[in-house]
């Protein structure tokens, strides 16, 4: 008899139920809408607490879901990102008059999808998670439905997402043909003699995930979707699906990586990493809209994170995990600031509009500047720690050249990150005053991110140990 193991998915159950309740509340008691955000944050924190309270039993449901330390890391990461995105979302929604329960419900379901994906040890379960995540995001991207850009973003993400889902399924089907199973731990044993079929299957799986990660050359959707989506959704979108997809990729690489294929994996992943780092950073220089700039920067950052995977081994995966944690704080701080600075959703978010704001709105500007320096990888921020660890893994794997490409790419990136700081502090303020100051949830969020970026940057030991413990499960 199969045990139900319900307590091991208690966080997911909580969030799914809460999402449903919020949608119903919206329909029946719309005057409670201002409280929805706080209800959701409370639910997310409760889920986070549950994930840590309930012992991690390891693989459950015939090994389909790995509720272990790695799963715990993934869930913590996703839930923290979700809570931070919610803090950014509330002022935004109240300003645009769109505090609907659906928004929070969809965000929670998307988070559950990502959590499922990141913990899944079976490709079909991965697919279920992927679809739950993607479908929720299609709606969220187009949530600002009076805005053409937002509709465009939703539509683009739908088309690309559906396409990549199909590619993923096709890859999974071929892998089933080659290995006779879709359970990742079992695949490891079955692929001892790699066939062209298996190689094709893995290539398709990697491509599908590369779409989600917006890696070069599968990145073309990212700038438009980032730009058009409501900014808090962009914050969520830039962090959570990417992290989940990266973990799936790490699992696939770790399990379907027999000796004969290692060379090909290395070549393919290195090509993706180098392409993303170079293209992302070069294209970001040319951007005038800060959301588009952050989209290209996100492409580059997934390239850096991939460097940790190219190196294989627990060392590299630990680097990737730390990188994801770092990326969460810096990226969400940046998007929250962008959201706080934009006065109208109809207009583009020009970097030019930040002129002189540094002295007017000090808290949010400080957080934005710090996140820029962190994204550029300058110590003592957590962004530096993440970069240090992935480049360290590359050097350890005798790929000094990859680390050199990485640091040169990040040198290029400094130019456009620092430009944001330049506009904030070194350009004069235009004549008109800002329409509103800093709403307190955004201030709170900014301070939380600043503290996280600096504390984890100076004392990364705890995060590192957590990541190493989690990554040990994927090492070989």
């Amino acid at each position: 008899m199969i045990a139900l193991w319900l307590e091991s998915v208690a966080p997911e159950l909580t969030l799914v139920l809460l999402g449903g309740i919020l949608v119903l509340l919206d329909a029946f008691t719309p005057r409670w809408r201002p409280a929805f955000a706080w209800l959701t944050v409370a639910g997310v924190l409760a889920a986070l607490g549950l994930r840590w309270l309930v012992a991690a039993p390891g693989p459950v449901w015939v090994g389909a879901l790995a509720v272990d330390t790695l799963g715990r890391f993934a869930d913590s990461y996703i839930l923290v990102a979700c809570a931070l995105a919610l803090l950014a979302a509330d002022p935004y929604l109240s300003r645009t008059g769109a505090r609907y329960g659906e928004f929070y419900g969809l965000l929670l379901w998307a988070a559950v999808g990502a959590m499922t994906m990141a913990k899944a040890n079976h490709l079909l379960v991965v697919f279920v998670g992927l679809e739950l995540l993607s479908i929720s995001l299609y709606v969220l991207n187009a949530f600002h439905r009076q805005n053409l850009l937002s509709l465009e973003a939703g539509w683009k993400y739908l088309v690309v997402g559906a396409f990549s889902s199909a590619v993923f399924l096709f890859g999974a089907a071929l892998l089933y043909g080659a290995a006779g199973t879709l359970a990742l731990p079992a695949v490891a044993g079955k692929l001892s003699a790699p066939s062209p079929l298996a190689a094709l299957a893995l290539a398709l799986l990697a491509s599908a995930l590369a779409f989600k990660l917006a890696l070069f050359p599968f990145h073309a959707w990212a700038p438009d979707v980032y730009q058009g989506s409501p900014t808090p959704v962009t914050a969520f979108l830039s962090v959570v699906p990417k992290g989940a997809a990266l973990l799936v990729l790490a699992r696939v690489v770790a399990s379907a990586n027999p000796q004969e294929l290692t060379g090909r994996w290395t070549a393919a992943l290195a090509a993706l990493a180098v392409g993303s780092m170079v293209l992302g950073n070069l294209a970001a220089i040319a951007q005038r809209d800060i959301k588009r700039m952050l989209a290209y920067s996100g492409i580059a950052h997934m390239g850096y994170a991939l460097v940790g995977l190219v190196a294989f081994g627990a060392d590299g995966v630990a680097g990737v995990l730390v990188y994801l944690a770092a990326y969460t704080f810096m990226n969400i701080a940046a998007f929250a600031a962008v959201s706080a600075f934009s006065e109208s959703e109809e207009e583009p978010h020009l970097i030019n509009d930040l002129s002189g704001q540094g002295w007017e709105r000090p808290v949010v500007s400080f957080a934005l500047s710090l996140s820029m320096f962190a994204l550029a990888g300058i110590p003592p921020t957590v962004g530096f720690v993440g970069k240090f660890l992935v480049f360290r893994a590359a050097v350890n794997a005798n790929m000094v050249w990859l680390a050199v490409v990485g640091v040169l790419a990040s040198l290029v990136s400094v130019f456009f990150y620092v430009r944001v700081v330049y506009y904030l502090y070194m350009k004069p303020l235009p004549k008109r005053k800002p329409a509103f100051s800093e709403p307190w949830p955004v201030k709170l969020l900014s301070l939380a991110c600043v503290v996280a970026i600096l504390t984890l940057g100076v004392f990364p030991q705890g995060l590192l140990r957590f990541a190493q413990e989690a990554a040990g499960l994927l090492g070989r």
Partner: protein
Amino acid sequence: MDFASFPLSTMIFLPGVVGLFLLLIPSRAVAFHRWVSLLASVATLALALFVFQGFDPSQGGFQLTEAATWLPSLGISYRVEVDGISLLLVLLTALLQPVVFLSSWGSINDKVKGYVVAMLLLETGVLGAFLATDMFLFYVFWELMLIPMYFIIGVWGGERRVYAAVKFVLFTLAGSLLMLVAILYMAFQYKAQFGVLTFSYHDWMALRLPMGEGFWHSPQMLAFAAFALAFAIKVPVWPVHTWLPDAHTEAPTGGSIILAGVLLKLGTYGLLRFNRGLFPEAWDRSRGLFMVLAVIAIIYGALVSWAQKDMKRLVAFSSVSHMGFIVLGMFAGGVTATQGALLQMVNHGLSTGALFLLVGVIYDRRHTRMIEDYGGLAAVMPVYTGTFLLATLASIGLPGLNGFVGEFLILLGTYQNHPVAAALGATGVILGAVYMLSLVQRVFWNPLVHEENRSLSDISWREMASFAPLAVFMVWIGVHPTTFLTLSEKAVQKLLGG
């Protein structure tokens, strides 16, 4: 906690912590920010003197070690300690910082809070970089200086400040990022040889990367090159010096003082400590190359200085020339030349710092740096003229003042093995006299043609107070350099002999 038992860490972090505290104080309290930052820097100087007093110059090795675990799983620890080489530079830094704060009272009136916070954070980075003996820690401090300096140039600088600030950041990072890869490479090479992952400078001294037959294609030469590029950009060695004139010219007075006085020394310090210490064979092999570059820098910097119309730019290019001397002395080898180079680092910090300070004094009054806008100031500002002349003479190496001792030791040490380089370098001394004295003549002695210069007020007590400490040490080092040379003698002998 007993701070007296952790003097180095207290000294390193005191300015930074005060800076973070000031961040919380409203920016309206301008006087409060000024006084607290000045007091913090004076307290740091006091701590530096406390360290000096506890330092034993008869030992060549590192002393007053303070260590703690930081990232044990990566082999990274927190470790700061001092030897004769770093002590001199720490004292210089601690001395210059109050001068910077005092000098800013007249020139920085806008966004004072941001300025003092950036300066205090910068001081923490500088002191940490001089004292760290864990390579990861060193790298963190090294990069920590970048952001405050970017703000100092970019926010409070001159007209082309943003260009200068971005150029400064990109140049500095271009070098240091490759150094980061080299640091990682060294760590894993050490692990491959000794089986332990560590970033400790002491442990790495035992590591000798292999040298190949050709000039470049060997691990040691490549790692050496990555380190040397980072430091050479900071020094700056010709031809990677182009960021310097822009950064020095556009920075506010205090920023220029700290840039010229301290930040450039990090480059020469890094070359001596890390390139000489970790890659001795590669150092020997590239000796000729660096001496050629140094001689080019000496002559080129001097000639370009001569042609400048902007006082600050003139002093900036003179730095290229003077720093060339220091590089020449270090690469010429031998204890004499290296000691001279080390002393010259301090000298250059004092005299160029003083020159930037004094240029700032008249800039605050006239808001122009063009030499042609002045003339005949000796009659209007007699005391100021005297101070400027003292700084000039120190800079061009008049016997009895500090610059002479350093240049003499460098040329003496260089001549023993490389007479041609010494002869070419010596022309830099002559050219130095030419451009500096012609500057003095055009600003102070020529006829007073601009009417607005007649009403200039002489140097104030506050400005005098910021100049005085520098003047004291210019004379002290000039008359009795042994005080300072004995501090570093054993450490230099150990580094060169070990």
